[in-house]
């Protein structure tokens, strides 16, 4: 497979799920920066504490796109508490692995989700995710 990616990664890269924006989202996450070459935006719609919709936009490599796609898939239908249990390793496993140099993309995807939840909590409860700070400093490789 190109770039040492699993078939699952390539499949999500080819046909990314949930691309786009949600108008009037309940939470928005924005992580990454152009210096690193990865930027992810995540939008969630929450009803009765359940994430009923999730979408993303990503500037980045194949792994960045595939992890974004996968995390939006994983999160749909989950409660906020369940969603917070999705770690970067959950994403990696769901994608049948990532090449070591691309693990940071899964971290970014986890962060994008947490950041969206953080935003949702702030808006709905006035208080964000306790202790949450995205790993935006992390650099490639």
């Amino acid at each position, binding site marked *: 497979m*190109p770039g040492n990616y699993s078939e699952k990664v390539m499949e999500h890269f*080819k046909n990314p799920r949930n691309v786009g924006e949600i108008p009037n989202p309940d939470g928005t996450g924005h992580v990454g920066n*152009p*210096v690193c*070459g*990865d930027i*992810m935006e995540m939008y969630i719609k929450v009803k009765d504490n359940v994430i009923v919709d999730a979408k993303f936009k990503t500037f980045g*490599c*194949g792994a960045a796109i595939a992890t974004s796609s996968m995390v939006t898939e994983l999160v749909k239908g989950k409660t906020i508490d369940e969603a917070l249990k999705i770690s970067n390793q959950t994403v990696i496993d769901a994608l049948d692995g990532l090449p070591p140099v691309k693990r940071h993309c899964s971290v970014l995807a986890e962060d994008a989700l947490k950041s969206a939840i953080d935003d949702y909590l702030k808006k709905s409860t006035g208080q964000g995710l306790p202790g949450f700070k995205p790993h935006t400093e992390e650099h*490639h490789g």
Partner: protein
Amino acid sequence: MDRIYLDYAATTPALPEVIAGMLPYFKDNYGNPSSIHSFGQEAKAAIDSSREKIAKSIGAKAEEIVFTSGGTESDNFALEGVAFKNQEKGNHIIVSKIEHHAVLECAEFLGKHGFEVTTLPVDRFGVVNPEDLKKVLTDKTILVSIMHANNEIGTIQPIAELSKIAKEKGIYFHTDAVQSFGHLPINVDKLGIDLLSLSGHKFYGPKGIGALYIKKGTRMVPFLHGGGQERNRRASTENVPGIVGMGIASEIVHLNLTDEINRETVLRDKLINAILKNIPDTILNGHPTERLPNNANFSIKYIEGESILLNLDMLGIAGSSGSACTSGSLDPSHVLLSIGLPHEIAHGSLRLTLGRFTEEKEIDYVIENLPPIVEKLRAMSPIYKKES
């Protein structure tokens, strides 16, 4: 359609004549060229004849050619060989910012072991200004290394002008011609240089073989220490098939070089013009005219290079983003940063490099298929949304 290979700057297939020429030296004439018996002497004759071919192709004498394991070793050999030999004379080395890593990393190594390294800037086309070179020469300068043509953006340097400045002060001048050999005519006297690096697999020879031209009289130590091969300048049992293959390749690429340059230039320009026209927010990296006949390098704004490559690969098109040698990390290319591109634009570069087997219909296929890929990725891009 077959797969379309547009990554000739990364590596090339070995020509059928090259493979056929190498075969006997694997199985029948497998002797060690240092051996006195007939097996050895057959091998020796073969490498001598290949040396003549390489020498002839750059206007050098056979004894000025030393075979190495590739472009990297040639570059390392040039820098370390001169540095460690001329240390009493001076410890200052000058390179350009857009050298290949084989020069830059070696200079960095030397920088940690007693040498001072000055890195010259380039303009937005990737060209070194001779005036800049003049300014940084000191009486401790022993070597200037500036590449002939850049591997990423294809820009050709004014080597003759630059080398003249060094020569006037008796300073050695090295040029990395790994990308230009077989794509531009090269004459070491006209370039006015002392050292020149070649790599076989960049011009339809095999991988793992290269050469360093060392002008007669150049004072340097060996890089590989050991046996007395290559007249005591490069130890190790000679890679006889590799040497033979590289010699054949050098002959073939020079047979009809001008025709091939013209042919590739036409295709390259067709590609460049179509992409710039059909895809908005796209720029050409490198010099508009002083560039390798087979190099096209674009920055496609708002999207990232690897994603473009993967999409192209899905359609059977092989391209590259930044130097193939470092694409494993996908750190933004030092060359693109040096010509002043911001990071996100550097991340979105696409290099397509043509070769002998590139056909017009392949170029047409790329012209047709790249725009929808870009559209799809831009639709997904959070920065495209905001800025457009």
